[in-house]
C-alpha cells in the first residue's frame, strides 16, 4: 500500500495541481471507460424476462432504484409478471433495477430502468445509442452522467486517470452511454444491446491497463494490461470498468449504486452540480445541512482534497455540523470544498486532489479505493471522512440541495439513500430526466453521500426525497454508493489534514472505482426489493430469489429452493453447449432443510402395504410429472418414459386435461416435496427399525478436565436430555441415550433405571473394542433420569484428579458403533475430544503437521487421512447407521483431516474450539451442542437422484459415503446438511420437456419411522447459450465450485486447483462474451447479469483459508474448513465467502440496515459495524465512534474502555442496544453454528483477524483485491477471446 500510495501521491498531486479534483475525477473515470475494462454486467435481465414483467416496472423503477424505490421496484419484480406490469411496480422497479442487478438482470425490461444495467455497461460507450431507447432519460442521464460520470470515475479513476481528461471524454461518452445503458438496461430489457451497453457500462475498462486508457494508461500504464488487473494498475481498469459498470448497470446494481457514488465523488463536482440542480436542495441539505457549502461542496471536497489542509479544517466544521448528522461533517468539508470551485470546477480542481479528493480527500477514502484505506488507518478515517466529505462534498453540493433528499433519503431504505444521493448527483446532471439517469451519476455522487448517509444515519432517508426523481438513479448508485459513501463520508476523516494528503495517494492508486464494479450488496438489495409475494414453484425453470432474500415459498410442483437450488434453471440441451459454456450444472440439495413456520413441512403420504408407487423401470417415485394415460390405468414415467400399471387401489379417473381428478388431494401429484411412509421392504434386514440412540462419548483426559470441558458437558447434558429430537412435541422422545467417557481406556456407564447408582465399566482392551453391556447402557431418559443425573454429577468429580494425558480415538467410535450394533439400531455419537490420539490403539496417529509442506506437492497429502483405519471404520459406521458428530477442543495439532474422516463420511459434523476456555467459549460450544442435539435428524439414510433421460447425476459433494456411483449413503442426515450434485449430459435434452430431477431420501426419523422424502425439480432446457446465461444462480455456482475445488486439493496441488477455478470462471464469462454479448470493444469486460458477481465471489473462494492459507492458518483449520464447506448449503457458502457487513450507526424499526461491501474502505471510523461470516460475528468499533453510540452499545462513553474480550454485549435498557442484541440473536438463529461475538476495536491487534474477512481487499496471505482480481479475470477472458 504504502508504495502505491506514494506513487499515487506523486502522480496525483501533479494532476491535482493541474486540475481540480472534479476534473481529474471525471478524467479518470473516462479513461477508465475507454480502457478496456468495462464491466458490463450484462444483465440477463433481459432474460430476466421472467421478471420480464417487471420491465415496465423496471423502467420507471429504474429510476426509482436509487431511492427507496428499489424495494418497491423489486417487489414488483418478484411479483409475477403481472405485478411488474403494474405501473406502480415500474416506479418500484426503477429503483430495483438499479439494485437488483440480478433482479434487473432477469428482467430485460427492467434493464432499461435498472440503473445499473443501463447505466454503466451498456449505455456508456458504444451502446450508448442503443440505450437510447431507454435513452432519453438516459440521455439526460448521460448528460448528467457526463457530469456525473465525471464524478464517479473520479473516485477511482481520478487518481489514476489524471490523464483522465480524455477518459472523461470517453468516459463521458461512456458514461452517457452508461447512463443510457442504465436506462437501457432498465428499459432495455434490450437484451443484447443492452448487454453490450452494459458491457460498456460494466466495462470496467481495464483501460488503465491498456495504454489506451490514456488517462489510465499513464498511471497504470505499467500495470495496465494484464498484470495490471491485479496490480494496482488493474484497478484503474476496474475503476473504469466500474464506472461503466455503474453506468452499465449490469454490474450496476451494486455498481450503480456504488459507482454512482463514486462517480459522483469523482464527478463529484459535476454530478453534484447536476444533482444539486435536480436533487440538491433537499437531500444534500439535510445531510449536509451545510450542504450549503453551496454547491461548492462538490468542489469543496475536491478543494478540500486539493487543499488537504483546508479541507481538514473545513472538515472539522462539517464534522461539527455533522455530528447531528453523520454527514454533516462531510458537508462542512464540502462546504469548504464547495466554496472553492464551482461544483464541478471545484471538484475538478479538487479532483486532482479531488479525484483524490473525493476519496483521497481524506486519504483514507482513496485508500479505500486501493485499499489504501486500510493502511492509512487513521488517515483513512479522516480520509474516509474526507472522502466522504469529498464525495459528499460533491454530493453535498448537490446534496446541499439534495441534502434534504438525502435526509429524506435516510428514511427510505438505506440503500436508497445512497442511491438517492447518487441519484441526486446523477440527477443533478441529468437534471430533467436525469433523475433516473442522473441517478446514475448522481447515484455516483449521491451514492457516496448516500453511503455516507448510510454510514451515518442512513442516507437512504434522503432517497425518499429523491425517490421520486431519482429513484432510478438511486438504484444505480444506491447500493454501491452507499458503501463507498459511507467510507468516504466519514466526516471525521475530512477534518484531519492528513487525510487530505492521503487522498492524493489514494487517487493515484485507484484506477478502477470499486464502486463501479459489481457490488454484491447492490445485487442482494435489489433482489430483496423484488420480492414482495411468495415465490411459487409451479413455473418450470424459474430462478428463485437469492438466498439472502427472505421470501415465502409456495410449493406448486417443484421443490422449494430451501430444499433444492440449481446452478442453472435453464440447462443446455446438449453436452456440447454445456462444455462450451463451462457453466457447471449442479443442484444443491438440502433434503431435510427446516422450513420457516409459515411453510408447511412436506406432507406424509401412505400408499399402503405395497409401498410407494414407482416406475417399474427406473424406480422413480410417483410425482407430479408422471403422465397418466389410458384413462388413468397406467402412467408414463417422466424420467424414463416407461409405462407402468396403476395399482387398483391407486386408480383414479382423469379429467378432460388428462390430470387425475384427485390431483390436488394427493401431495405426490401436486407438490414438489413430500414424504412417503416406507414399508418394511425399505428397511434394513426387512425389519422395521428401532428408535435411534444418542451416545455421548466424553474425553476425560487431563486437558479436557482442566479446560472445564468435562464439567460443562456434563452439566449441559442434564438439560439437553429433555430436548432430544422428537416428532411429536407432546410426547417424550423415544431416542435412547448412553454415556461413555474415555482417555486411554473407555468407561461405559450402566444407568439402568433400577440401579441406585450408575455403574462404570472400564474397557481397557482398546485394541479389540467391544461393548461391555447392552441392557442399561442405552436407556430411556425419562426412566433413568435419576441415575443419569447422578452419573453426570459424578463424572467431573471422578476425573478431577486425572493425570492421564493420552487419549484414544478410533476405539471410541468403535465402541459407539458396537453399542449401536448390539442394540440393533441407528444412532448418533457425540464425541467430545481434545487431543491427537497417540495412545497405543487402533487409529493411533502421529503428529505430521509440517508447515514446510504447505505450498508443495506434498501439501495435498496433509488433507488426506493419515491412516486408512478411519476409512474402514467409517464404512462400518455407515452400514450400521451410526452418525458421528465430533466436537474438538484442541490445544495443538489434532489432525482433523484424519479425525474428521468418520464424521464426514457418516453425515456428521465437526465442531472445533481451538484453545477452548470455559469462560469465553462455553456459550458457543453449548449453543452448538444444543442445536446439534435438538435438531431434526434422520438416520440410516440413502439418497438417490434420478434424472430424466439426457442427464445424469455424476458427482456428489457433501458429508456422506458412497459405496457405488449412485447411492449416497448417510448414516445421519440433519437439517443443515446439503449435498451438491453435479449433472452431466449423456444425451440430448429437449426444450419441451425440460430436465427433471427427483431426489429421494430414504431415512429413519428420530422416532424410528422409516420414510422416503422426495424432492422433485424441473428446469428448462435451452438451445441458446443466452438463455443459459440468463437463468443462472451465481451463489449456487459458487457453492459448487468451492466444493469442487476443496475436493480437488485432495489430489492436486492447491495452486493448480486455484488455476482451474480461474480458468473455468474465465471460460464461462468468455463464452458469454463471445456468444451472448453484443460485439463491443475487447477492452470491455462484459458480464452476464446473473453472473456479474461471479468474479467477486470466486475471488473470495480463491482467497479462502483453505485455498490460500495465511501464515497463521494451521493445517487443522484448513482441514476443518474444508470439511465444513463440503456440506454447506448455498446460503452458508454465500455468507462464508462473502461476509455480511452491517453498519450499525442507526438501527430503526424492524428492517436491517443495508449491508456494506466487505472492504475496509467502506468502514467509517466513526461507525460501528457488525460482520457475520457464518462462523464468526465481529463487532467492529471505529476509533472515533460517537460517544452516544458507545453508551448505547457498551454502556461506556470511552472507546478505550471497551472490553474487547466480551463475547456478548451488555444488556442495556435502550432501544438501540435492544435492537442490536436482537439483531445479533437473529443472526445467530439463522446459522447452524453459533457465532461467537468478537468485539474488534479499530487499530486493535484483533483487527487483523477482522480484516481477514474484508474480502474485497487484498488479503495478508496474498489474495487479490476484488478490483485486482476483476482485472485479472478480464485479462484472462480477453486471452480466451483472442
Amino acid at each position: 500500500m504504502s508504495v502505491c500510495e506514494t506513487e499515487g501521491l506523486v502522480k496525483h498531486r501533479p494532476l491535482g495541481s493541474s486540475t481540480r479534483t472534479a476534473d481529474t475525477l471525471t478524467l479518470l473515470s473516462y479513461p477508465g471507460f475507454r480502457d478496456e475494462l468495462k464491466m458490463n454486467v450484462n444483465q440477463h435481465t433481459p432474460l430476466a424476462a421472467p421478471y420480464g414483467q417487471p420491465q415496465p416496472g423496471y423502467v420507471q423503477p429504474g429510476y426509482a432504484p436509487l431511492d427507496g424505490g428499489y424495494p418497491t421496484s423489486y417487489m414488483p419484480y418478484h411479483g409475477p409478471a403481472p405485478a411488474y406490469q403494474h405501473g406502480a411496480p415500474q416506479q418500484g422497479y426503477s429503483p430495483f433495477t438499479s439494485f437488483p442487478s440480478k433482479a434487473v438482470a432477469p428482467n430485460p425490461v427492467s434493464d432499461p430502468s435498472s440503473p445499473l444495467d443501463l447505466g454503466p455497461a451498456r449505455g456508456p460507450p458504444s451502446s450508448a445509442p442503443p440505450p437510447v431507447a431507454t435513452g432519453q432519460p438516459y440521455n439526460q442521464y448521460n448528460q448528467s452522467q457526463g457530469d456525473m460520470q465525471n464524478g464517479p470515475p473520479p473516485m477511482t479513476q481520478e487518481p489514476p486517470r489524471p490523464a483522465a481528461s480524455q477518459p472523461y471524454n470517453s468516459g463521458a461518452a461512456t458514461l452517457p452511454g452508461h447512463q443510457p445503458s442504465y436506462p437501457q438496461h432498465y428499459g432495455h430489457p434490450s437484451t443484447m444491446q443492452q448487454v453490450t451497453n452494459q458491457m460498456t457500462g460494466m466495462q470496467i475498462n481495464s483501460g488503465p491497463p491498456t495504454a489506451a486508457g490514456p488517462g489510465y494508461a499513464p498511471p497504470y500504464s505499467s500495470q495496465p494490461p494484464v498484470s495490471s488487473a491485479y496490480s494496482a494498475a488493474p484497478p484503474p481498469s476496474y475503476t473504469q470498468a466500474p464506472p461503466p459498470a455503474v453506468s452499465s448497470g449490469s454490474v450496476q446494481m451494486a455498481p450503480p449504486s456504488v459507482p454512482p457514488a463514486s462517480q459522483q465523488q469523482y464527478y463529484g463536482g459535476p454530478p453534484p452540480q447536476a444533482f444539486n440542480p435536480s436533487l440538491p436542495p433537499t437531500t444534500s441539505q439535510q445531510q449536509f445541512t451545510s450542504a450549503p457549502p453551496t454547491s461548492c461542496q462538490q468542489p469543496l471536497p475536491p478543494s478540500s482534497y486539493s487543499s488537504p489542509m483546508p479541507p481538514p479544517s473545513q472538515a472539522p466544521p462539517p464534522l461539527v455540523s455533522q455530528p447531528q448528522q453523520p454527514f454533516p461533517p462531510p458537508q462542512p468539508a464540502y462546504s469548504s470544498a464547495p466554496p472553492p470551485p464551482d461544483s464541478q470546477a471545484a471538484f475538478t480542481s479538487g479532483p486532482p486532489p479531488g479525484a483524490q479528493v473525493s476519496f483521497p480527500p481524506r486519504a483514507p477514502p482513496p485508500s479505500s479505493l486501493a485499499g489504501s484505506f486500510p493502511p492509512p488507518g487513521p488517515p483513512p478515517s479522516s480520509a474516509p471522512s474526507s472522502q466522504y466529505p469529498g464525495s459528499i462534498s460533491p454530493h453535498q453540493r448537490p446534496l446541499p440541495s439534495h441534502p434534504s433528499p438525502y435526509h429524506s433519503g435516510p428514511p427510505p431504505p438505506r440503500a436508497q439513500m445512497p442511491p438517492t444521493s447518487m441519484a441526486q448527483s446523477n440527477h443533478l446532471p441529468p437534471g430533467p430526466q436525469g433523475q433516473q439517469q442522473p441517478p446514475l451519476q448522481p447515484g455516483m455522487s449521491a451514492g457516496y453521500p448516500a453511503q455516507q448517509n448510510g454510514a451515518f444515519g442512513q442516507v437512504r432517508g434522503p432517497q425518499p426525497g429523491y425517490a421520486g426523481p431519482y429513484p432510478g438513479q438511486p438504484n444505480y448508485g444506491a447500493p454501491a454508493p452507499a458503501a463507498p459513501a459511507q467510507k468516504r463520508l466519514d466526516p471525521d476523516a475530512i477534518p484531519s489534514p492528513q487525510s487530505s494528503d492521503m487522498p492524493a495517494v489514494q487517487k493515484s492508486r485507484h484506477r478502477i472505482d470499486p464502486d463501479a464494479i459489481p457490488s454484491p450488496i447492490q445485487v442482494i438489495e435489489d433482489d430483496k426489493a423484488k420480492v414482495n409475494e411468495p415465490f411459487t414453484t409451479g413455473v418450470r425453470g424459474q430462478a428463485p430469489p437469492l438466498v439472502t432474500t427472505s421470501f415465502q415459498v409456495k410449493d406448486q410442483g417443484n421443490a422449494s429452493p430451501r430444499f433444492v437450488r440449481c446452478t442453472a434453471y435453464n440447462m443446455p440441451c446438449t453436452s456440447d453447449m454445456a462444455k462450451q459454456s463451462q457453466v457447471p450444472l449442479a443442484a444443491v440439495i438440502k433434503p431435510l432443510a427446516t422450513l420457516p413456520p409459515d411453510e408447511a413441512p412436506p406432507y406424509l403420504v401412505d400408499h399402503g402395504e405395497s409401498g410407494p408407487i414407482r416406475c417399474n423401470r427406473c424406480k422413480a417415485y410417483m410425482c407430479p410429472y408422471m403422465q397418466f394415460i389410458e384413462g388413468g390405468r397406467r402412467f408414463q414415467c417422466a424420467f424414463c418414459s416407461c409405462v407402468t400399471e396403476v395399482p387398483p387401489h391407486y386408480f383414479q379417473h382423469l379429467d378432460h386435461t388428462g390430470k387425475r381428478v384427485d390431483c390436488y388431494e394427493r401431495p405426490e401429484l401436486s407438490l414438489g416435496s413430500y414424504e412417503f411412509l416406507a414399508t418394511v421392504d425399505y428397511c434394513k434386514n426387512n425389519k422395521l427399525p428401532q428408535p435411534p440412540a444418542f451416545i455421548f462419548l466424553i474425553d476425560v483426559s487431563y486437558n479436557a478436565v482442566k479446560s472445564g470441558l468435562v464439567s460443562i458437558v456434563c452439566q449441559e447434558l442434564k438439560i439437553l436430555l429433555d430436548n432430544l429430537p422428537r416428532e411429536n412435541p407432546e410426547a417424550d422422545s423415544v431416542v435412547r441415550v448412553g454415556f461413555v467417557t474415555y482417555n486411554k481406556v473407555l468407561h461405559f456407564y450402566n444407568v439402568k433405571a433400577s440401579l441406585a447408582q450408575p455403574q462404570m465399566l472400564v474397557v481397557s482392551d482398546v485394541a479389540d473394542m467391544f461393548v461391555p453391556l447392552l441392557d442399561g447402557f442405552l436407556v430411556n431418559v425419562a426412566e433413568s433420569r435419576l441415575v443419569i443425573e447422578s452419573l453426570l454429577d459424578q463424572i467431573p468429580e471422578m476425573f478431577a484428579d486425572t493425570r492421564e494425558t493420552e487419549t484414544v480415538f478410533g476405539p471410541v467410535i468403535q465402541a459407539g458403533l458396537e453399542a449401536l450394533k448390539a442394540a440393533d439400531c441407528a444412532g448418533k455419537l457425540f464425541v467430545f475430544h481434545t487431543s491427537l490420539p497417540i495412545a497405543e490403539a487402533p487409529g493411533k496417529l502421529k503428529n505430521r503437521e509440517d508447515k514446510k509442506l504447505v505450498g508443495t506437492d506434498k501439501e495435498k497429502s496433509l488433507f488426506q487421512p493419515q491412516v486408512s483405519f478411519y476409512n474402514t471404520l467409517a464404512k462400518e459406521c455407515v452400514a450400521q447407521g451410526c452418525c458421528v458428530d465430533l466436537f474438538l477442543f484442541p490445544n495443538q495439532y489434532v489432525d482433523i483431516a484424519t479425525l474428521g474422516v468418520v464424521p464426514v463420511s457418516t453425515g456428521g459434523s465437526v465442531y472445533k474450539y481451538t484453545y477452548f476456555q470455559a469462560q469465553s467459549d462455553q456459550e458457543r460450544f453449548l449453543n452448538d451442542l444444543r442445536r446439534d442435539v435438538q435438531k431434526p435428524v434422520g438416520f440410516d439414510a440413502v439418497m438417490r437422484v434420478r434424472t430424466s433421460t439426457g442427464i445424469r447425476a455424476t458427482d456428489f459433494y457433501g458429508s456422506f459415503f458412497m459405496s457405488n456411483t449412485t447411492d449416497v449413503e448417510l448414516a445421519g442426515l440433519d437439517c443443515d446438511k446439503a449435498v451438491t450434485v453435479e449433472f452431466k449430459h449423456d444425451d440430448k435434452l429437449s426444450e419441451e420437456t425440460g430436465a427433471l430431477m427427483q431426489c429421494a431420501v430414504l431415512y429413519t426419523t428420530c422416532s424410528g419411522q422409516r420414510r422416503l422424502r422426495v424432492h422433485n425439480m424441473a428446469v428448462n432446457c435451452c438451445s441458446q447459450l443466452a438463455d443459459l446465461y440468463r437463468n443462472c444462480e451465481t451463489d449456487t455456482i459458487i457453492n459448487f465450485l468451492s466444493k469442487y475445488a476443496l475436493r480437488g486439493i485432495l489430489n492436486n496441488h492447491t495452486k493448480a486447483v486455484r488455476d482451474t477455478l480461474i480458468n473455468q470462471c474465465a471460460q464461462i464469462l468468455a463464452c458469454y462474451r463471445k456468444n451472448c454479448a453484443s460485439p463491443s470493444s475487447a477492452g470491455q469486460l462484459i458480464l452476464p447479469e446473473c453472473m456479474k458477481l461471479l468474479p467477486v465471489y470466486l475471488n473470495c473462494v480463491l482467497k479462502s483459508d483453505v485455498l490460500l492459507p495465511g501464515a497463521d492458518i494451521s493445517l487443522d483449520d484448513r482441514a476443518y474448513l474444508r470439511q465444513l464447506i463440503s456440506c454447506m448449503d448455498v446460503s452458508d457458502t454465500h455468507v462464508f465467502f462473502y461476509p455480511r457487513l452491517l453498519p450499525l450507526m442507526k438501527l430503526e424499526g424492524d428492517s436491517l440496515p443495508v449491508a456494506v461491501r466487505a472492504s475496509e474502505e467502506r468502514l467509517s471510523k466513526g461507525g460501528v459495524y457488525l460482520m457475520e461470516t457464518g462462523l464468526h460475528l465481529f463487532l467492529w468499533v471505529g476509533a472515533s465512534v460517537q460517544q452516544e453510540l458507545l453508551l448505547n452499545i457498551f454502556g461506556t462513553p470511552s472507546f478505550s474502555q471497551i472490553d474487547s474480550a466480551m463475547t456478548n454485549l451488555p444488556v442495556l435498557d435502550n432501544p438501540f442496544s435492544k435492537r442490536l442484541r436482537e439483531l445479533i440473536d437473529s443472526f445467530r438463529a439463522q446459522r447452524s453454528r453459533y457465532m461467537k461475538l468478537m468485539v474488534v476495536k479499530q487499530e486493535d491487534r484483533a483487527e487483523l483477524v477482522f480484516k481477514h474477512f474484508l474480502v474485497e481487499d487484498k488479503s495478508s496471505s496474498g489474495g487479490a483485491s476484488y478490483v485486482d482480481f476483476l482485472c485479472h479475470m478480464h485479462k484472462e477472458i480477453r486471452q480466451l477471446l483472442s
Partner: protein
Amino acid sequence: MSTYQEFIQQNEDRDGVRFSWNLWPSSRLEATRLVVPVSCLFTPLKERPDLPPVQYEPVLCSRANCKAVLNPLCQVDFRAKIWACNFCFQRNPFPPSYAGISEANQPAELMPQFSTIEYIVQRGTPAPLIFLYVVDTCLEEEDLQALKESLQMSLSLLPPNALVGLITFGRMVQVHELSCEGIAKSYVFRGTKDLSAKQIQEMLGLSKPMASGQQGRPVAPQDASAFCRFLQPVHRVDMNLTDLLGELQRDPWPVPQGKRPLRSTGVALSVAVGLLEGTFPNTGARVMLFIGGPPTQGPGMVVGDELKTPIRSWHDIQKDNARHLKKATKYYEALANRSAVNGHSIDIYACALDQTGLLEMKCLSNLTGGHIVMGDSFNTSLFKQTFQRVFSKDYNGDFRMAFGGVLEVKTSRELKVCGAIGPCVSLNAKGSSVSENVSERTFNINHNAPVPQGGRGAVQFVTQYQHSNTQRRIRVTTIARNWADAQSQIQHIESSFDQEAAAVLMARLGVFRAESEEGPDVLRWLDRQLIRLFMFHMRRSPFLQVFNNSPDESSYYRHHFVRQDLTQSLIMIQPILYSYSFYGPPEPVLLDSSSILPDRILLMDTFFQLVIFHGETIAQWRKAGYQEMAEYENFKQLLQAPLDDAQEILQTRFPMPRYVDTEHGGSQARFLLSKVNPSQTHNNLYAWGQETGAPILTDDVSLQVFMDHLKKLAVSSSA
C-alpha cells in the same frame, strides 16, 4: 503293644497317617509280590486340638539336599550338642538357641509323642487371606438372588482383614473395583479373547507396582491394597461390596431363543488368576468360582451356544466326538498350574441341572486343592449350607483351611516316593510334591534300595503352609515302620495289613487310572489286583462306572473320592445302610436288595446322598397320618429317628450331601435301588421267593454272582 488295630487307630489320630502295610517288606521284589503297594493315606493338616504349635523354627539338617527336620527319631548327643539326621545320617550341631538342652530338658520335637509337631514361622510379613469371588451372572433371577445372598452372607464370615475381590462374568468379564466411592466401577474384558497375564495386568493398570516388590514374597498388605483396587480388606469395603452384590444384575445381554447364554468362564478364570498372579503371588488366596452353566464362549469353551448341540456325554467322549474337550481341558490345566504355582486355590461351585463342564474344569480344583461343589441350584440348602461350611471354623476360631501349602516328603534311603494322588501338583523336585489346602492324600512309596534287616524305615512329611490366621506354619510328621523280611516274617507282614487303608488306596489307584484310561481296562486291572468285598461296590460305584453318570458327575465324585479321609472314602465305596424298625434299635444292614422291607425305614449314606427310605407299609401309615395321633407316638418317634441321624451327618459333612426323603415306589427311591446289591432282580425274583426284599430292575450281576466268578477266576488264574 496292643493290637494292630489299635496301633493303626492311634497312628491315625496322632499323625493322620494310615499305611496299607505297617511292616514293610525289605525288598522291592517282595513289595511287588504283596500286590497292594506300600503306601499310605496322609492327612497333612489333620486337626489336632491337643497339639499347640511351637513358636520357633524347625531345626534342619544341614545337608543341602536333605534338609530334614529334627525329629524324635534322631540320635542326639546332648553333650556335644549334636544330632544325627535319621535320613541322611549327617551329623548336625544344634543351633545356639538349643544350648540349654539336656536329656532332662528336651525340646518338644525330640519327644516321641510329638512325632507330629507344628512350628510357627516368623519369617516375612503375614499376608492376609484373599478371597476372590468369580460369579456367573447368566443365572435365573431366582438363582442369582440366592447366590447374591449367599455371597453377602459370606462376607460376614470372613476375617475383617481378609482381602476380597469380585469378578462377574457372563458375555463379558467384569472385574469390580472396590476402592472407589460413589460410582461402582469395573473393568471389563471381552469374553472371547484369551489374554496373557501381562495384558490383563496392564489393562487393569497393575503393571507398574510390582517392579519394586520382593520377588516371590507376598507383598505387604498395605502396599498391596494401595495399588490393587480390586482386592480390598473386608472391613473396608463391606458395605460397598454388599451393595455391589445387591445390585448385581443378570447378564444384560439378551439370550436369543434356542441359545445358551454366553458364558465366558474361561476368560473370567484367566483374569482372576492373572489378577492374583500379578498382585499376590505366593500368597494364600482362594478363587471361588460360581457357575450356573457350561462355558459357552472363548477359551475354555465346553459347548457352543446352540441349544441344539447338547453338551458332551460319555458316549461322545468315547466316540471322540467332544469337540471342545481337549482344548478346554488343556486350557484349564494351564490355568490350574499357574494358580498352583502361586499358591492360589480355585473352588468350583457349580449349580445347574445340566452339566457345567466340571469334567474340563476339575483340574482347577484338583490341582490347586480347591473344592468342587455340585448342586442343582444356588437356591438349595445343599449349596447354601455347603458354601457356609467352607467358612467353618475350628476350635480356635480359625478357618479350616490353609493356603499355599508345600509338602515335602523325606524318606529313608531305602524308600522313594513314586507319586501322590490328591489335590496337589508336583513341583517336579526330587522326592517332594506340592499342594495346598490339604486334607487327604495318598502316597505311594516305592522301594529304592534293599533295606537292612531289623532297621526302621522312616518317612517325614514336612508341610509348609499359610494358616488361615495368616501365620506361616510348618508341620512336620515323622513316621517310622519296621522292616520285615517277607520270607521269614510273612505272617507279621500279613497281620500288619490294614484292610481298610488298602481298600481305599487301591480304589484311589483305580480312580486315578480311570481318569486317564478307558473304563473297562481299569475294571479289569482292578479285578486282577485284589478281591475283597469293597471291590464289588467299587466296581459299581460312580467312581469307575460312567454309565448313568454324566462326565461332570463322574468328575465330581472322583474329585471327592481322592481327597476324603479313610472313613469317608469307605462310605463312598460301600454306602452304609441303617435300618429302623419297631423291632429294635437302628441296625446296620446289608447293602442288599433284601434289606428293603415294607416295615422298615432305611437310611443310606453314600457320602454324596443321604437317603431316607420308607418301606411300603411305613409309607402308607405315614400317609394315613398315624404319626399325628397321640396313641401312635412311637410311630412318630420311629419316623423321627432316621431324620435325626441324617441331620447329624448333614451337620458335619462337607460338601453337604444331597438329602433325599422318599418312600417305596417314589421316584427318588432310585438312589437307594441303584446302590444296593441286586440280589433280587426281575431275573431271579421268583427263584428267590417273594418273602423278603424288593426286586431291582437291573442286569447288573449281584454280589453272589460276582463272588462265584471271582472264586473261579482265582483258582483258574493260579492254575
